């Protein structure tokens, strides 16, 4: 391909052309970064629509030429690799601009506090109020603390460096994975581009979270496992293979201390690879591919053993944490309801109250049939080439199918979050399948027929029409996945809004957090809503009580029950923080909505909040207040006296006047 060009164009002209193309690309990257910053700035100043257009201009200013170069047959393999990594680095910009120099997203606060505790004490700690399961899977924090200890970077910068490196490694891993499977850098480039359309990739929910490190580890486990299991020519050195197998095993080990679900996916994928490799050797899938079942089974066995060990070791805590997500009877009920069998689960409307413009919402819906058509086309096409396929393709096919299977659950309130997170895995399947099929199609080696009718490659008269159609579909999926992947509040800044994640962070939360940093100690225990408690937790060393705990009943029940007072005593709560608007804007359930056990709340806890009651309890003192937040210190001794005398401590005259 390239050779034909080289023979007709003088090398000096080629160099000049390459230099010019590189300069133009560099300018596009520079301008795109500037436009992304402009879009964020416009949004933060209250713009309602213009910033979306600026954002998409910035997006396509980079992705369009990069995609063009990646697909061009004049681009070298090395240049493709470089462009994929450059795309990965560029994609850090939107979230870096959004978060700035501190954690902002929900999970980030939790993981960052765990990191702070790890650095302070030398041991991972789980804070029940922030991250129940954290200390059992502290891989990300351990790695970040390692960089912190050896480099002297600040904790947040260390976290960003690890997150950025992992983010780039994920895309590069997808590229290498598919290049190994196809021996085509063009197929690999298509796969990388498809993965970059993953709804949680460009605007990830959290830069610093379990999956940040776990996902690239998973991809590189597969890279090294498949490389290690690949049969060599007779006489070839075994050292590289041994190292690859060892690296796959090491990555699997690192993975099981980093993230629970990803380690299960990794083990399942390795088992599936081993099964397919065995079937390809002597079963119905007999092929020309050369994956060693022995090595594949060895790695799969290691992954299963070590994952099982970790799960058994963590035990009950993991069951409590993951149980609600993997409530299979509920999931089945929702799936059956799609076919009209029985009643489904409570649903929420996609894009409800979304401030995204119409074209983004439309693309969010349109991308689903486009993905389905593309996936069916790819699988159909690959079936014709199944004798040459890597076992990876079968694993990828299953992952891709799971995306469509997950869609009925996406609108169920109980599962939307889990489904959204699962798409990071599903898109790995899409990337592999579409990358391989796309690579074959571009090389003219993909054919699809039905009853003697050739469906692919299309007739010449359709070929020219098809290209802009495919490009338009790619644009729709790109826009749709971003709009479907995260709320606009995650993508852009804006006016501070209490009870909206992450827009609740602003001057007031900073004031409250700084007050705690100055006044509270590590012996203090704070009960606050799920929003403000996060900035408090990372600004100070206080312990945090679960926002959905019994303590919240004090604000939600019509009469004060002693079990509520007992909770404050039992948890040794020394501070309460609440927003005076609770229950007057939004809904009271915002205090505890993410806690799966909210059905345990008293029935009368769904009404208004009795927040001013707190100012009339003799065991509480309001010592700090902002425009909307109140910080109250709990007098534990006085509360204990009241409790033992069967008193609530409520001054009824006060409650009648101020409550």
């Amino acid at each position: 391909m390239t050779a034909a060009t080289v023979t007709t164009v003088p090398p000096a002209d080629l160099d000049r052309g390459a230099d010019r193309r590189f300069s133009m690309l560099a300018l596009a990257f520079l301008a795109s970064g500037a436009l992304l910053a402009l879009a964020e700035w416009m949004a933060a100043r209250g713009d309602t629509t213009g910033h979306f257009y600026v954002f998409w201009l910035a997006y396509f200013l980079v992705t369009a030429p990069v995609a063009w170069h990646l697909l061009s047959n004049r681009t070298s393999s090395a240049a493709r690799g470089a462009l994929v990594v450059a795309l990965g680095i560029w994609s850090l910009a939107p979230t870096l601009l959004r978060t700035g120099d501190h954690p902002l997203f929900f999970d980030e606060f939790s993981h960052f506090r765990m990191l702070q505790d790890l650095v302070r004490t030398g041991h991972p700690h789980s804070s029940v109020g922030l991250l129940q399961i954290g200390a059992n899977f502290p891989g990300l924090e351990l790695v970040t603390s390692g960089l912190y200890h050896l480099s002297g970077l600040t904790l947040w910068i260390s976290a960003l460096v690890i997150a950025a490196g992992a983010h780039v490694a994920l895309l590069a891993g997808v590229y290498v994975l598919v290049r190994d499977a196809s021996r085509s850098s063009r197929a690999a480039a298509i796969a990388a581009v498809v993965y970059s359309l993953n709804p949680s990739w460009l605007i990830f929910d959290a830069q610093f979270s379990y999956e940040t490190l776990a996902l690239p580890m998973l991809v590189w486990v597969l890279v090294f496992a498949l490389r290690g299991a690949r049969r060599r020519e007779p006489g070839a050195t075994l050292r590289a293979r041994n190292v690859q197998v060892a690296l796959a095993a090491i990555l699997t080990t690192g993975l099981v201390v980093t993230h629970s679900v990803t380690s299960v996916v990794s083990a399942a994928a390795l088992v599936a690879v081993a099964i397919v490799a065995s079937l390809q050797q002597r079963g119905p899938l007999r092929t020309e591919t050369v994956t060693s079942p022995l090595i594949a089974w060895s790695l799969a066995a290691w992954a299963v053993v070590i994952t099982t060990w970790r799960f058994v070791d963590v035990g009950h805590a993991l069951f409590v944490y993951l149980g609600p997500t993997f409530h299979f009877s509920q999931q089945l009920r929702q799936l059956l309801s799609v076919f009209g069998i029985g009643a489904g689960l409570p649903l929420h409307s996609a894009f409800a109250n979304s401030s995204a413009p119409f074209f983004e919402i439309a693309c969010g819906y349109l991308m689903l049939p486009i993905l389905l058509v593309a996936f069916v086309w790819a699988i159909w096409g690959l079936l014709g080439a199944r004798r040459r396929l890597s076992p990876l393709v079968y694993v990828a096919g299953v992952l891709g199918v799971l995306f469509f299977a997950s869609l009925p659950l996406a609108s169920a309130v109980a599962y939307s979050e889990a489904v959204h997170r699962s798409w990071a895995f599903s898109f790995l399947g899409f990337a592999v399948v579409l990358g391989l099929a796309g690579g074959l199609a571009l090389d003219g080696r993909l054919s699809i027929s039905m009853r003697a009718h050739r469906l692919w490659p299309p007739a010449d008269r359709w070929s020219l029409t098809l290209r802009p159609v495919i490009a338009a579909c790619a644009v729709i999926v790109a826009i749709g996945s971003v709009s479907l992947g995260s709320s606009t509040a995650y993508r852009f800044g804006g006016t501070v809004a209490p009870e909206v994640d992450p827009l609740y962070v602003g001057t007031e939360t900073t004031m409250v957090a700084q007050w705690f940093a100055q006044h509270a100690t590590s012996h203090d225990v704070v009960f606050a809503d799920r929003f403000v408690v996060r900035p408090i937790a990372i600004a100070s060393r206080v312990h945090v009580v679960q926002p959905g705990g019994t303590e919240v009943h004090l604000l939600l029940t019509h009469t004060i029950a002693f079990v509520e007072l007992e909770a404050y005593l039992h948890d040794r709560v020394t501070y309460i923080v609440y927003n005076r608007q609770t229950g007057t804007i939004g809904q009271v359930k915002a205090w505890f909505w993410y806690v799966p056990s909210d059905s345990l709340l008293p029935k009368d806890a769904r009404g208004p909040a009795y927040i001013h009651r707190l100012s009339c309890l003799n065991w509480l003192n309001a010592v700090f207040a902002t425009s909307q937040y109140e910080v109250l210190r709990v007098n534990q001794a006085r509360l204990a006296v009241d409790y033992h005398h069967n008193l609530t401590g409520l001054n009824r005259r006060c409650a009648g006047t101020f409550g």
Partner: protein
Amino acid sequence: MSVVQRDRGASRGVWALGTGGVALLLVAALLAPGGAEGTVRTVVGCLAVLVIPGWLVGRLADEDGDAIARLVGGTIATLAVVAASSFAAYELGLRVATAVVAVPLLVLVAAAALLGVGAPPVRRAPLAPIAAALALGLAALLGAMVTHLALPATPVQPAFSIEAARAVVSHSQVRVTVTVTRVRTVEPTDLTLYVNVSKVGLPVTVPAGTTPLAVTLAGRFPAGAASCPSRVQVRVVASNGAFLTPPVTCVGR
């Protein structure tokens, strides 16, 4: 160049990199934070954790001469080693700090260098793709950063805070000093003092001007108010409803 010469050159390179990696790790572990020494430590530490071990490890597994796969794959594997070894150390009761991270990395770098020296020659991996990727990616981040800094600052949320550590109550008087801080707001315009449910005096206007500022609210203790301090609640209410109920200190009662 003969194969033997190339092998010797490659071996020397791996030796140099391995020795350099070990040296950098030791330097990073021993240098103090802060100042010029701290800056050196930052650069050295990043190289010692994120670049050199990854390159040496990735080189052993690389059969294609691909610098990107070599560096990125090796670095992710290095991070997995750090995660697994630090976790093992924690399980063994060790404190996860510099030594727990540095020792496994030293072993990894030394092992990778030794294996690399004894290994058959591998294909050269030109660094140009990494340089090009970094140049393009950093151009985007530079554009974003410069624009972000060049644009006027976005307005922050208007808010105020009030704070009072305690209220002092004597036979005849109640006194509270409230610290008021304002950010882009004129609130609170005034503060009102209550003892139990009785208003004490008139609302006090909070003066405009630089904050934080201390505003003292004082008034006559209401006749017939309960004994101090168990039955007395002093309350400061801001114009927007924000309130303080500081602990009461009784003087001479």
